[in-house]
């Protein structure tokens, strides 16, 4: 396996993980806020649905995605017709699979941060003339930031390692959906692929350690920035 091929795989993996993470942030903030702060009918169901990927076998999650977004399903057809987006067996699908798998991790992390925020601060902001929306953006959201950053790092690392849902929903197509983990799996399936697998495993380990370091650094930076009162 030459350097070009390896870097291709690494770049594709990083791109998919980054897009999945970025795509998760806003829904995760919204869901975390809903689940932590609001009481509404169906809250428990929503909670279960968001967290399902944590407990379901990833292959099952991939299968469910196929059932939802497959080209013959209503949602899949609608996506192709209105947005021209075809998810199954594309890079977009790999992003989607990674995002769905990473979402609960991010929601949990953000929710934990949100529950740690003193609601009295929000009340104080209201007495100072801030509307609910203003209070959310000027007080709640900035204070959620450490949780969001921690959640994003976690989601990114999880996305890099995503396998089951991706291979089921997006398949294993070179240069499109063949991420690091899928490439390692493929290399092990081919005769004489041992050497390539070894290289890819080393890179995978390096990225994981990098993500851990990043988590540590970002944690320290946000904690410093946000000195607890």
């Amino acid at each position, binding site marked *: 396996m030459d350097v070009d091929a390896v870097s291709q795989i690494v770049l594709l993996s990083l791109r998919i993980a980054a897009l999945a993470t970025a795509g998760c942030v806003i829904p995760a903030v919204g869901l975390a806020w809903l689940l932590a702060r609001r009481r509404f009918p169906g809250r428990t169901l929503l909670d279960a649905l968001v967290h399902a990927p944590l407990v379901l076998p990833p292959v099952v999650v991939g299968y469910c995605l196929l059932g939802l977004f497959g080209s013959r399903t209503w949602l899949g057809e609608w996506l192709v017709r209105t947005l021209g987006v075809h998810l199954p067996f594309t890079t977009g699908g790999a992003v989607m699979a990674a995002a769905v798998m990473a979402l609960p991790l991010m929601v949990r992390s953000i929710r934990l941060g949100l529950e740690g925020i003193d609601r009295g601060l929000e009340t104080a902001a209201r*007495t100072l*003339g801030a*509307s609910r929306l203003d209070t959310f953006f000027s007080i709640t959201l900035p204070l959620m930031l450490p949780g969001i950053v921690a959640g994003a790092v976690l989601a990114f690392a999880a996305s890099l390692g995503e396998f089951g849902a991706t291979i089921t929903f997006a398949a294993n197509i070179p240069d499109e959906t063949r991420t690091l983990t899928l490439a390692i799996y493929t290399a092990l399936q081919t005769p004489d692929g041992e050497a390539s697998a070894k290289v890819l495993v080393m890179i995978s380990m390096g990225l994981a350690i990098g993500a851990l370091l990043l988590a540590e650094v970002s944690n320290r930076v946000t904690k410093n920035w946000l000195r607890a009162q």
Partner: protein
Amino acid sequence: MIELAFSVSQGDFSLEVAAVLPKSGVTGVFGRSGAGKSTLINALAGISTTARGLIKVGDEVFLDTERGWQLPVERRRVGYVFQDARLFPHMRIETNLRYGARRRSGGESSDLWQGVIDVLDLQPLLRRWPGSLSGGERQRVAIGRALLSRPQILLMDEPLASLDAPRKTEILYYIERLREAYPVPLLYVTHSLDELVRIADHLLLLSDGKVMACGPFLDLVGDTALQPYLGRFEAGSVLECVLEQHDETFGLSVLSFSGGELRVPKLDAPCGTRLRARLRGRDVAIALKDPPELSITNRVQGEVLALSYRDGPYVDVLIGAGNSKLHALITRESCARLNIRVGLSVIALIKAVALDSRTVGYSRRAR
């Protein structure tokens, strides 16, 4: 005028308020914990939305349940100082201070800004973060932040409760200064009468969710009928005094009041300062004739106005001297022995050491 006619029920606690407060000066909202003090100002601020009835501040209707009207918190223009300061931890002090000001129509006023910064000595704190401030400093910032949002009324909920004694004195000093510089009506919630003695003009007395009394502070605080709500060991009288002179040799200050003079441990305030002295009933003794060879120098000539018998072995003797009224708490036994009765001319004896900076008005600057 602040019109309050509302009720709040929360579980098995209910608060029933019907009172009219002046829209000026400092109104002390006093009561034991659980009396409903915080519930009252939270309803006024709009933080708790369970109040039913009418709340009006000046011409502005905050709440009118009959007409289905409720003004949201952010439009009531109440400056609220919480017990725990509640500074925004992700903003520097300067940004904290400007938070409210930026959100009021008309934007910020540089005169008000400079004035508040000066009165509360906030300049050295502006670049710092809330996490690095002491409790007293935080509370000063919280007061400044509330004031800078140009409120039509200031609310303080036990602002000194989480501070140690020297910090309490310090913050009280700032509140006194602020009261002179900015005549914003202030509702001050506390369970400490000592704090109110320093600053209150009016009193709203709460007990078990009901208003027991509402009126001028000095009248109410000496009202025997209300003593049970003020607590036996708080019982006493408050005298309005003027600081006449300092006695450097013995480290004393001389205060004059209608009816006599008091010598107290030296106060750190200039001559001419008006201040209040609180005399606890148990610190006042009674003599029929001027006793010779006694250490007590504070001797006030007066006449017994009333005797009220309390639970246990005590009698509360109300003594009139000039326009002032003094309470003396003595035993029934002493009362009978000296045959103290209404109309009798007596001398009230007050130990100077009973009057320290904690009970005498204008707080010394604690630095």
